[in-house]
């Protein structure tokens, strides 16, 4: 029997099925939304993972929530078949991004956790021989897909990486470019250009105030200048956040993201 006390109870909120969408050949978006109470309504927050399957190697960027393991387990079987997973790359060691590293390490005995690998031994008990530090600027050649570890311009934890895939020009941005979406409108798998509306300041602020609390107190313009420089350098066609819809029209969405972050700023 489930027993709950207290004023704010989230159990009972419906679980959202994990979905998969191919963004480009070899790049799959694994969509693990969670429903969250927000006032009198429910909204969704993505906790996405991205599977990259090159000709020689495969990589999973972020892991999603532990509660999604049974579905992720099946999805990986379907997408990878017998080829296995080579790189597990959490963008940072928080639960929605790294909470399944143990399961993945156990499922794929030849895999390594790659990227900024500090904390994973202490936090998750990952053996040191299964950790591969990949410094900023180094490229993992997956075969047809080339994944570069990039500076995380917007982050909350120090051990955060962004990643850029050169062939598809996809930039994986961890907690940045985050925004919630509606619960009942089937929007979980939609790209930004397919959504009926541009992200609102409220949708951006909902995630930003939780995942990037400090940016509410930040000098945003210097931060945005660094962001613009990063975007100019990589020139991404697609921006793939962990906590927001995949952005296939970055130039159109970027002003809304900035506006939303300015809106929730406390300065």
């Amino acid at each position, binding site marked *: 029997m*489930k*027993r709950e006390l207290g004023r704010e109870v989230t159990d009972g909120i419906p679980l959202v099925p994990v979905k998969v969408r191919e963004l480009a050949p070899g790049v799959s978006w694994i969509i693990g939304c969670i429903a969250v109470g927000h006032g009198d309504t429910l909204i969704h927050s993505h906790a996405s993972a991205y599977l990259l399957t090159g000709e020689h190697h495969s990589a999973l960027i972020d892991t999603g929530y532990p509660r999604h393991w049974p579905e992720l387990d099946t999805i990986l079987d379907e997408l990878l078949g017998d080829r296995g997973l080579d790189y597990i790359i959490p963008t940072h060691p928080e639960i929605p991004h790294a909470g399944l590293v143990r399961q993945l390490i156990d499922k794929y005995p030849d895999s390594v956790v790659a990227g900024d690998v*500090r*904390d994973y031994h202490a*936090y998750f008990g990952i053996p040191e021989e299964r950790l591969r530090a990949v410094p900023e600027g180094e490229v993992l050649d997956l075969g047809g897909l080339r994944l570069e570890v990039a500076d995380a311009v917007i*982050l*909350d934890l*120090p051990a955060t990486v962004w990643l850029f895939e050169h062939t598809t020009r996809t930039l994986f941005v961890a907690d940045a470019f985050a925004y919630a979406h509606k619960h009942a409108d089937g929007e979980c798998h939609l790209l930004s250009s397919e959504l009926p509306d541009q992200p609102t300041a409220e949708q951006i602020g909902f995630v930003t105030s939780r995942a990037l609390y*400090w940016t509410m*107190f930040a000098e945003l313009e210097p931060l945005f200048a660094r962001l613009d420089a990063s975007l100019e350098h990589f020139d991404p066609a697609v921006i793939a956040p962990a906590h927001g819809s995949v952005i296939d029209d970055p130039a159109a969405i970027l002003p809304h993201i900035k506006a939303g972050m300015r809106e929730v700023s406390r300065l």
Partner: protein
Amino acid sequence: MNEVLGPTRVDEIIPGRLFRVASPLPLDGSISFAAVDPERVEWVNCYVLTSPGRALLIDSGVRIHAHGVVDAVRGIVGDSVLEVTITRTEPDTLGNIFHVIAELGVETVTIFGNHVHPLDFSNAIDGGPEVVEKGDLMVSRRPFADRFELNGFELESIPAPMRVLATAWLYSAELKTLFTSDAFGFVKPLSLDDDPVDREPLDLQDEVAVALFHANVRAKFGWLAQTRSDQMLDAAGAVFAERDVDLVAPTHGKMLAGSPVIDSHLAGLRRLPSAYPIEGHNR
């Protein structure tokens, strides 16, 4: 390897009332939340409040210390009824909660805010024995700002003004102790046998000491130098000003004792933005 750096240690901070359970990690670059420092070590702390027949564990440490933490808490608690609370849902607070629940017979866990079930997280991190079912665990959810009783201990939860993710600071008026989760743990011990409590104010005239302090602040809160942090630090200062705090009990590093020490740390934090201009890298 971290496992052999040293054993988990127990310090009786307030006789018969407050214990610290501290497990060491090396400051060799393998952790991100403290600066590299070959002359010091890091402690990951949990705290046990005790009264006759009752005990409360605040946070549960990181996974590689599971056995040390469980054994230490068991030794403190004995046959008392144990409840657990966690200040935030991150791997250094949740890391061993599954082991603690399973091995020490915990029936109630208290969390703050609108989080999902803690076992959604800990099952994955902990890798402990598969004997705890969600339905067997009573989860008490409290607001971030509240006064309440947990297993007989009067506590106040305070929304942490200086934080990464949603975090509750916990205050015990009876013990005059503020549990600050991942804040104010910026002084690292010189050895495994070091005093658990820092009793010397940060010397703001000592550039080396201030630089070391800032290095540890920046390791955890690298973005602080990019913020107009006055609002955060004013709010943090108000938490102390409005309460009678003798001890600060963070998740990492040494505890702090006394207003002069606490005030010196607040002053050191206020110097951070000027020490590291806003154009600086954020980690």
